[in-house]
């Protein structure tokens, strides 16, 4: 099921993941989560977008029962993550940010070990292993030691392993981190097939904007332990304006923003990243082209200027004041 544009699921269904006021403070006082709440609906792909340290991995850790929350509740497939952790683990599959394979064994042996831990009957496990290896294009490497597999193959193997128990919900923590673009593309296609072929609900964390935009039905933007926005990628972009005027300036961008403001040319709210000023053009404005002409005529000096589509990074910058990769904004 793909949720509606406002993110609500159908009334007939219960959320596959229900998180309410979830908090986590680590020993030493580091507050990783400051009371986040969200639901994930059956068949949905939810992306958690944020820079390193935003709280994405802590959230996945709590939902997969490897981190204890210090407040709030989280329910997975009807089971509380604290009180019914064993049942939760029986309902989920997880592919971690780092490679978590048994390096002493082959791809096939890793899958068989997983099947036994999740108590998949042997014949059924063999059928699923054959199917998943083929789906992840790993059939010809099944008997090779995992040490000999490339990064992309290892990641595909981990996704296959996570699916082996027919999980109702799959957690993918930074599934394409460190992979080259071609491999990343392959992983995205594999994730998209999870829903179409298996109907799996997916929660993934990422700090790749393209990944969030391309793969996810909804995106939760997480910043400093809080969800600052949760909506479909399109809705997040629309809230900012579909197009943006981008200026690359030589002088202090704050001065240029000030001048644009005095001239009434600063659009909805200018975003500054280094020497680049981005002015999203909101709905109902004169339009990006008209704004470009007016800025050009105003005498503001820019090394370059142009129009482009707004991205989730703009939305992220707008909502958090920092870029999704952690660079400082205005």
């Amino acid at each position, binding site marked *: 099921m793909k949720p509606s544009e406002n993110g609500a699921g159908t009334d007939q269904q219960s959320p596959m993941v229900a998180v309410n006021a979830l908090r986590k403070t680590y020993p030493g006082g580091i507050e990783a989560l400051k009371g986040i709440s969200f639901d994930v609906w059956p068949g949905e792909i939810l992306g958690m977008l944020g820079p390193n340290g935003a709280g994405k991995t802590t959230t996945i850790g709590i939902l997969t029962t490897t*981190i204890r929350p210090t407040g709030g509740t989280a329910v997975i497939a009807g089971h509380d993550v604290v009180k019914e952790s064993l049942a939760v683990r029986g309902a989920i599959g997880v592919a971690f940010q780092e490679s978590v394979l048994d390096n002493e064994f082959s791809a096939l042996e890793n899958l068989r070990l997983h099947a036994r831990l*999740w108590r998949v009957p042997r014949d059924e496990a063999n059928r699923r292993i054959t199917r998943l290896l083929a789906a992840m294009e790993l059939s010809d490497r099944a008997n090779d030691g995992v040490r000999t597999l490339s990064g992309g193959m290892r990641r595909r193997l981990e996704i296959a392993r996570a699916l082996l*128990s*027919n999980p109702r919900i799959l957690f993918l923590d930074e599934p394409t981190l460190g992979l080259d673009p071609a491999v990343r593309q392959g992983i995205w296609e594999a994730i998209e097939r999870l829903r179409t072929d298996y109907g799996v609900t997916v929660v993934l964390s990422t700090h790749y904007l393209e990944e969030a935009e391309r793969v996810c039905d909804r995106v939760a933007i997480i910043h400093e332990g809080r969800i600052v926005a949760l909506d479909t990628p399109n809705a997040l972009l629309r809230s900012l304006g579909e197009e943006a005027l981008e200026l690359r300036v030589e002088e202090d961008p704050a001065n240029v923003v000030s001048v644009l403001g005095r001239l009434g040319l600063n659009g909805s709210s200018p975003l500054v990243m280094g020497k680049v000023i981005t002015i999203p053009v909101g709905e109902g404005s004169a339009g990006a082209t008209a704004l470009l002409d007016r800025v050009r005529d105003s005498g503001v000096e820019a090394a370059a200027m142009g129009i482009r589509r707004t991205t989730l990074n703009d939305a992220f910058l707008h909502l958090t004041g920092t870029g999704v990769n952690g660079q400082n904004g205005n």
Partner: protein
Amino acid sequence: MIRTASLVEVAAAGTFTLYQRRLAVALKTVSGIAGTMAPPILWVLLIAPALDEAVGGFTPNIDYFTYVALAQVALIVPFTSMFSGINVIVDKEFGILREFLVAPVFRASIPLANALAVLTISAVQVALIIGLGEARGAEFDTSPSGVLWFGAAVALLSMTTYALAETLALVVGRQEAFGPLIPAIGVTPWFLAGSLFPLSVLPPVVEQISLTFPWTHALAVMRYGMMEGTESGLVDIWHMDSEPVMAALSVGVLLVMAGAAMALTLRVFNRKTMA
């Protein structure tokens, strides 16, 4: 999807799977098998006869070769346990522990399965020592009761020292730091446990300290079970007349130590693997 199963089934199945995996890791390579089997063979075929030749005459009423062969058991078992601590660090830092932590198995199954795998490897090593020792002329008492005392002491020593190893591995967390602890903890107490000479020849303070080691009690019970005659070491520990009572007391001490060590391991495991 996890099948409907009782908690006991889940616990047993999870522990057994993890146990088999740990054994498979240990025996995956030729070097792993050789490293496991070579020490007991070398000890029985070379070192024990040499020790017998060199110092065996210190007391006439025992067969020193048999005495030392049983001491080897008390050396090999903790040493194997300590070495297995490295696997805990590898699993945690580079390997598959995180996969196990999200598996529908009880968390306690993970260290328990490790301990059982180490116990199995130790049992094979002990069987080698006893078999080869017998072939080389050792005189073991293999009566059922003797074997039972011996087996209990070996199992409890293995569980205690493995629990200690896993706890240390989890606390230390790095192979570089754990490595030096292997000989320090795996071997040093053994020298003071009445392994090569009776406790009574140690300085009194050291003798008292040695009574707190599981090695001391285990070795005395092993000798009580498998050596005919006296000089098991139990009298040096308990200063009583009845050897069965003293053996039972030492087994009791070992039980308490093994239980406490496993409880500590489970506690440390939970704290170190759950943020």
